[in-house]
C-alpha cells in the first residue's frame, strides 16, 4: 500500500463523491460546484500520472473558464431548485437501471480486457514535457488543431446567433 495508491484512492473517492453529489443536489449551483470538485480531483489524478500540463489546463480552462460560464448562466437565468417531475415514466423506471447496466457492461468489459490488464502502470515515470506536447500539436496534429480554431469560431457565432436579443 504505497503512497500513490493512497492518493489515488483519496482523489478517486473525492471525484466519485463529487459526481454523486452532482446528481443528488437539487440546486444547479450546488451541482456546478460539485462538478468543479470532480474536475479538481481529476486534475490531481493527472498530476499523479505526471501529466501536469493537462492538469493545469484542466484547472484553468475547465474548472476556471467553462464552469464559470456555467455558473454565470445559472445566475443569469436565476435557475431555482429543480422540481423532480416524473413525466417520463421510462426514465423513472428504466433510466437508472439501464444507466447502471451500461456502466456495468463497460466496466466489466474493461476489467476483462487482457490488453488493459497488460498495460504498464501509468505513473510519473513517463513524464511528458509541455515541449513534446506542443511539438506534437504543431506538427502531427496541426490539422485538427487548426480545425478547432474554426470550431471555436463556430461556437462564438452560435453564441451570437442564439443569445442575441430580438432586433
Amino acid at each position, binding site marked *: 500500500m504505497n503512497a500513490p495508491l493512497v492518493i489515488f484512492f483519496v482523489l478517486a473517492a473525492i471525484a466519485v463523491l463529487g459526481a454523486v453529489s452532482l446528481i443528488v443536489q437539487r440546486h444547479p449551483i450546488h451541482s456546478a460546484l460539485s462538478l468543479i470538485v470532480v474536475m479538481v480531483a481529476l486534475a490531481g489524478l493527472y498530476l499523479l500520472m505526471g501529466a501536469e500540463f493537462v492538469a493545469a489546463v484542466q484547472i484553468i480552462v475547465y474548472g476556471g473558464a467553462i464552469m464559470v460560464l456555467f455558473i454565470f448562466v445559472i445566475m443569469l437565468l436565476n435557475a431555482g431548485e429543480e422540481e423532480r417531475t416524473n413525466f417520463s415514466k421510462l426514465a423513472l423506471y428504466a433510466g437508472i437501471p439501464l444507466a447502471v447496466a451500461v456502466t456495468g457492461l463497460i466496466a466489466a468489459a474493461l476489467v476483462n480486457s487482457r490488453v488493459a490488464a497488460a498495460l504498464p502502470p501509468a505513473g510519473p515515470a513517463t513524464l511528458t514535457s509541455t515541449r513534446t*506536447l506542443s511539438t506534437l*500539436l504543431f506538427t502531427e496534429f496541426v490539422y485538427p488543431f487548426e480545425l478547432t480554431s474554426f470550431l471555436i469560431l463556430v461556437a462564438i457565432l452560435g453564441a451570437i446567433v442564439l443569445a442575441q436579443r430580438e432586433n
Partner: protein
Amino acid sequence: MVPTNYYLLLSAILFGLGIVAFVFKRNIITIFMAIELMLNAVNLAFVAFSQARGKPDGEVFVLFVIIVAAAEAAVGLGIIILTARNRRSLNVESVNLLKL
C-alpha cells in the same frame, strides 16, 4: 504505482455517473453538466492510456476534447438561454412540444 486498470475503472464509473446524471436530472443546465462529467471521464481514460503507453499524443487529444467541450459549452449555454427565454422553465420535461 497505481495500475492503469484502476484509472480506467474510475473513468468508467465517472462515465456511468454521468449517464445517470443525464437521465436523472431535470434541469437542463445540470444535464449539460452531466455531459461535461462524461467528457471528463473520457479525458481520464485518455490520459491514463497515454501515460501507460508512454505516448504523449493521448494528452493532445485531451486538449482537443477540452477545446471541443468549451465550444459545446458556449453553444449549449446559448441554446439553454434561448430555451429558457422562449418558455420560462429550465425543466427539460416541460420542453415537449414536439412529439409523436
